[in-house]
């Protein structure tokens, strides 16, 4: 059994930030990564738009990852690559399968979960039709294209207008494929406006809203798809059905936090985020186990992932040094009208830790498109924050900053429509 103060699982942006933040507290830190190199999904994010908030300049995902990678490798963080955590127990012992060292048993004082998320596969949406070769998740096609230099097809239909789908529409076009269209079943896109303009409009790729693939056609290889519009109840409108000839389908239909590792140890989970329920220090329901990044909730900006990693890493280090006694009493953060979820879901009642500046930052996502509205936060019947905004959209993670002195009970966060003038 090898002992470490803080063990971090996952060497993507969340894990690297957590490791760098923990090591500053003079504790021993082990960072475990299953890939042969640190960086996680950023290794295949060759497009730019990263780091505007964190580094105050626009970087590609690969550049962003490499800055953190350099810092980790030049620090005293112990890094285990090519290693997979196969078991974790509530007493904070881990079993790791390492390519170099075989099975390794590790004991930690605190653990940071930073395993990220994976893509929803074709099976999750039950498309009818054949099961030929040529149906890919957008992120996997991205990995093949951007790391291996392989193009998965030449005539592409993309289902789902999440950011990965939009980014891949441009990448496949730049790499010589013809992207015929992006179909989105919702009446609005799940991606950022910037990506719709610079990935689709720049390349004359049509985006069809309220449209889905009804079935895939092809014996060995995809030969085409049927697409159709859907009504407001998501029922296919048969009269709009048409056939599109293509050789590949890319799916960008959502992400799932990769939490299998903690499913059996009793960490309280949120059904909405599919991540752990955490307090403002990102501690889960098992004391000493922290969660951050996309394994906690799916982010749209890596800058926020890095900040959350730093927060979790810092508190995990304090826990390992036993210098942060937190009480058991916690206030709840409750998502009401219009808000799909808010995070953290709990705030320590006796000793609100916040971010050190006397504030607690709440992240939230809305459940639909709300224009001319305000986010309103209430505590014990009092309104403690109100912020109007022209548009709230489910595709963009929002945040509000609360003063810790205002938090005297459970917190309610909701969206209110503003009267039209």
């Amino acid at each position: 059994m090898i002992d470490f103060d803080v063990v971090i699982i996952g060497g993507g942006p969340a894990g690297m930030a957590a490791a760098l933040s923990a090591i500053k507290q003079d504790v021993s830190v082990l960072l475990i990564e299953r890939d042969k190199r640190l960086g996680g999904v950023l290794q295949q994010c060759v497009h730019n738009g990263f780091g505007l908030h964190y580094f105050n300049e626009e970087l590609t995902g690969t550049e962003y990852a490499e800055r953190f990678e350099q810092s980790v490798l030049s620090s005293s963080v112990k890094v285990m690559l090519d290693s997979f955590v196969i078991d974790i127990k509530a007493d904070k012992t881990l079993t790791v399968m390492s390519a170099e060292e075989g099975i390794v048993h590790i004991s930690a004082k605190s653990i940071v979960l930073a395993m990220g998320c994976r893509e929803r596969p074709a099976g999750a949406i039950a498309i009818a039709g054949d099961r030929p070769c040529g149906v890919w998740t957008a992120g996997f096609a991205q990995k093949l294209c951007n790391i291996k230099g392989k193009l998965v097809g030449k005539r592409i239909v993309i289902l789902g207008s999440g950011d990965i789908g939009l980014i891949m529409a441009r990448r496949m076009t730049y790499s010589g494929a013809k992207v015929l269209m992006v179909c989105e079943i919702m009446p609005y896109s799940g991606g950022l406006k910037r990506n719709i303009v610079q990935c689709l409009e720049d390349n004359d790729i049509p985006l069809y809203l309220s449209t889905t693939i009804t079935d895939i056609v092809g014996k060995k290889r995809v030969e085409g798809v049927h697409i159709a519009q859907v009504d407001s109840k998501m029922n296919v409108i048969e009269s709009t059905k048409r056939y599109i000839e293509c050789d590949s389908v890319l799916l960008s239909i959502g992400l799932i936090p990769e939490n299998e590792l903690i499913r059996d140890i009793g960490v309280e989970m949120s059904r909405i985020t599919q991540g752990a329920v955490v307090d403002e220090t990102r501690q889960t329901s098992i004391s000493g186990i922290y969660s951050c990044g996309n394994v906690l909730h799916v982010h749209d900006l890596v800058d926020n992932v890095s900040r959350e990693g730093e927060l979790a890493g810092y508190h995990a280090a304090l826990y390992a040094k036993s210098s942060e006694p937190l009480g058991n009493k916690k206030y709840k953060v409750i998502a009401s009208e219009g808000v799909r979820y808010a995070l953290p879901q709990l705030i320590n009642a006796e000793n609100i830790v916040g971010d050190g500046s006397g504030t607690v930052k709440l992240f939230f996502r809305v459940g639909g498109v709300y224009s001319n509205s305000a986010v309103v936060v209430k505590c014990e019947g009092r309104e403690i924050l109100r912020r109007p905004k022209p548009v709230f959209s489910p595709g963009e993670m929002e945040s509000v900053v609360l003063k810790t002195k205002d938090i005297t009970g459970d917190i309610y966060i909701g969206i209110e429509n503003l009267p039209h003038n």
Partner: protein
Amino acid sequence: MKKEYTCIMCPMGCSLTVTEGKSGIAVSGNSCRRGAEYAIQEYKDPKRIVTALAFTDVVNCVVPVKTDALIPKGKITDVLAVVSQLKISLPISLGQVVVSNVCDLGANIIVTRTLGAIGKR
């Protein structure tokens, strides 16, 4: 002359219309000043950073590159054509210039990921 754009300055995504007449350029559909500035820039001289993949001397391994300055949108295809002809020897480091002053646009093509030095993949 009339052209339409979707504003990307904020999530509102206003539909912008730029009209050029005898009295100059006018923007409509915007909700704020930033929207008008964006529309005029897009109308007069749209620019982008281009990111792409270049082949290397290692099988099944490409290296990501980008232009280190904004280039005119209309020149993207030309820049991609230059990148597609490259064959880069590994190892190579982040920031290394592989094409200087690409297509005479005043921008270099630089590598955005260190490859070969830390570990081949």
